[in-house]
């Protein structure tokens, strides 16, 4: 048995009276990949933020290589050798890739090159970053400004930043939620190398297959409480899910009755320079059209164009036989289109507003008395949505930004649903959402389609695309390469067309 490098005992933390962590524990061995699992809001990120000193614990002990860390701040823990990749991708958009990677550690670089200690040595920072990125096998220009990178590239930079610290423990909070399979493979290669060098990894993800592929040990939290720690080999998909949600989940995807009505949305020759070209498809009422493809295939761009977020170069959009021009999201909403963005932080919700105000935002008109907001009616609707989607919140007036990632996603879906759309575009609807909630979101999507709503679902998770779609449109580099029937398609077929 390898020796323990980090031990946590009886750690607790409350937010305004509500226990986010209640006596949790962790025993991390040298050189292991230790998965931390739990539903949205289970307290995983809070736990990790306490470990690296970004949040303070109310009580409990953190012992790292024999010394106590309860009262350390981030800069101490970084120096001691713990680094973290944050779930919410904490980058400085205006700085360059290299500057982001070495942010907070400029002094080390300077010291080694013999400058006065307050001086910046950007050429050395650039050189080191280039070397690091090359080693990782990713092609990103270290001198590019962060804001011009794709989300996936930013994530790779965050990974580079964490490993460049020569850390002994690296915490990865949902590092793969925004990257494609190829990059996941790169990351797993890196993790295996780190392991070989006796570095310990705490790995958080909602993607089950990843967990079983990479982890040695699994610790499960539920509702802020420690449930158990087991060797990964002792568990399988179902037993792990049962530990996480506290009940058995027999079926991931709901039955599909397959009742479709008339064509609600049809697009023809849709093109946008440099993003996608010549896209044509139809969606019927009650139908789910899946959009599959690799990162950068143009799926999100198509959704944004239909929703009026980006201008179209050419092409026609018809809603129920009517040619329409959609110039703004407001246009789109008034024509019955709803959009759940993949970019939850950027487009999905207003962080500082309450859960209830966020949910009601697009449908305030339906909840008014004269010029006033009908508070009672609003509260009823909000509570119904919270119950239906099982949003975990301390109250309807909690700020949306304080919810866990998955619960934020549910708030966004709730908001879109309330505007009673005819067509709903869901872009990565279950990104960062736990299994239990995934099942609920799938049920919800199925419900919507059974009510006659036409649904376009973009997803990078193939099981999800296969489990939910009636038809699957596959895109590759901005062109559509196949339309497959949901019943007949397989992962292999989709992948073949996705790289075509």
């Amino acid at each position, binding site marked *: 048995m390898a020796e323990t490098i980090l031990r946590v005992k009886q750690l607790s933390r409350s937010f305004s009276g509500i226990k986010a962590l209640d006596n949790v524990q962790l025993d991390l061995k040298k050189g292991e990949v230790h998965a931390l699992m739990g539903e949205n809001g289970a307290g995983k990120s809070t736990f990790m933020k306490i470990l690296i000193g*970004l949040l303070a614990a109310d009580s409990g002990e953190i012992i790292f290589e024999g010394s106590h860390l309860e009262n350390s701040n*981030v800069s101490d823990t970084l120096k001691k050798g713990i680094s973290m990749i944050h779930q919410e991708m*904490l980058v400085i958009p205006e700085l360059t890739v290299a*500057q982001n990677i070495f942010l907070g550690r400029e002094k080390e670089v300077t010291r080694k090159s013999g400058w006065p200690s307050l001086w*910046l040595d950007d050429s050395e920072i650039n050189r080191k970053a280039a070397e690091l990125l090359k080693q990782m096998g990713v092609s990103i220009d270290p001198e590019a400004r962060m804001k011009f990178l794709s989300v996936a590239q930013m994530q790779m930079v965050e990974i580079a930043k964490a490993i460049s610290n020569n850390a002994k423990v690296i915490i990865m909070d949902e590092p793969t939620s925004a990257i494609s399979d190829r990059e996941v493979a790169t990351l797993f290669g890196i993790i295996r190398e780190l392991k070989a060098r006796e570095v310990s990894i705490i790995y958080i993800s909602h993607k089950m297959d990843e967990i079983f592929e990479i982890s040695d040990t699994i610790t499960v939290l539920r509702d802020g409480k420690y449930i158990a720690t087991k060797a990964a080999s002792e568990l399988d998909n179902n037993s792990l899910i049962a530990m996480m949600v506290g009940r058995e989940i027999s079926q991931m995807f709901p039955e599909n009755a397959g009742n479709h009505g008339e064509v609600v949305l049809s697009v023809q020759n849709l093109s946008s320079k440099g993003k996608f070209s010549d896209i044509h498809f139809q969606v019927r009422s009650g139908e789910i059209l899946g959009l599959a493809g690799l990162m950068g295939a143009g799926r999100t761009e198509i959704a944004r164009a239909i929703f009026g977020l980006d201008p179209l170069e050419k092409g026609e959009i018809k809603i129920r036989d009517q040619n329409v021009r959609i110039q703004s999201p407001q246009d789109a909403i008034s024509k019955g289109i709803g959009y759940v963005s993949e970019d939850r932080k950027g487009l999905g919700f207003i962080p500082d507003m309450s859960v209830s105000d966020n949910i009601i935002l697009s449908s305030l008109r339906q909840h008014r008395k004269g010029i006033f907001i009908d508070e009672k009616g609003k509260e009823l609707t909000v509570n119904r949505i919270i119950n239906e989607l099982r949003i975990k919140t301390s109250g309807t007036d909690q700020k949306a930004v304080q919810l866990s990632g998955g619960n934020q996603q549910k708030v966004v879906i709730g908001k879109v649903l309330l505007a009673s759309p005819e067509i709903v575009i869901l872009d990565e609807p279950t990104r960062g959402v736990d299994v239990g909630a995934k099942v609920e979101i799938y049920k919800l999507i199925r419900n919507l389609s059974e009510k006659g709503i036409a649904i376009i679902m973009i997803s990078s998770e193939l099981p999800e695309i296969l489990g939910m779609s009636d038809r699957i449109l596959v895109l590759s580099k901005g062109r559509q390469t196949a339309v497959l029937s949901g019943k007949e398609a397989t992962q292999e077929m989709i992948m073949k067309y996705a790289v075509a």
Partner: protein
Amino acid sequence: MIIGTQVSINALLAFGVTFVIITGGIDLSLGSMVAVTGVVAATFAHPDTYPLAVPLLAGLGAGLLFGAFNGFVVTKSKVPPFIVTLGTMTIGRGLALILSKGRPVSNLSDPFNFIGGGNVFGIPFPIIILIIAFLVCSVILNKTILGRYMYAVGGNEPAARASGIGVNRVKMWVYTICGILSALGGILLTSRITTGQPNAGAGFELDAIAAAIIGGTSTSGGTGTMTGTLIGALLIGVISNSLDLLNVTSYYQQVVMGVIIIGAVVLDSAGKKERG
């Protein structure tokens, strides 16, 4: 000549507030700091009392303390910098009146008056100060770790914190530096008009902020350069001077200046859209 001094003072304040704005803050107390530091310096600058270094250090020290106080309140309270410095703007004005008993402090020594009015090798001394301050501020912003941290704090504060940066320390620094630069402006002005005026500097903060914004500093933090701010300050100086020469009254000048500020930002954001 007079424009030289006016532009220099505005540029000094604008450099200071550029640091603050880059971190995502704002400082409205610049004008009041000009008055306080000017009065303090003038108090020690009567002929045949103290050597020149004393009024200079007293003025700069007052600016440093004032700025550090701004920084302290901003970092220790959760009150937004806009409100904090709105408060200290009024406090500063009051202090200047108290210290001077409401009267201009005049009868200043020749060496002191040289600072704002003298020439070295034919170049007005304020311009020399401006150039030196510009170089020092540029170096701080681009070549030191502190400068990098300013961009980081303004660009994404949680990310800066998660990278182990002492966010509060960075903020303390920028407000303090801003105070020192305002003091330099206060000393220049006092020397130029050969009096410590408790009412001096009113509205200077707006010109300084305008210079920073015209120069491309984003009020939401994270971007900005000293060169941009210098250009902004020069532009404001040149324009108001040409309007003077064209006999445009000060009423119209204000309207023109307002249009230029908005125009600069509109052009800047239009340019960004095309690139982005």
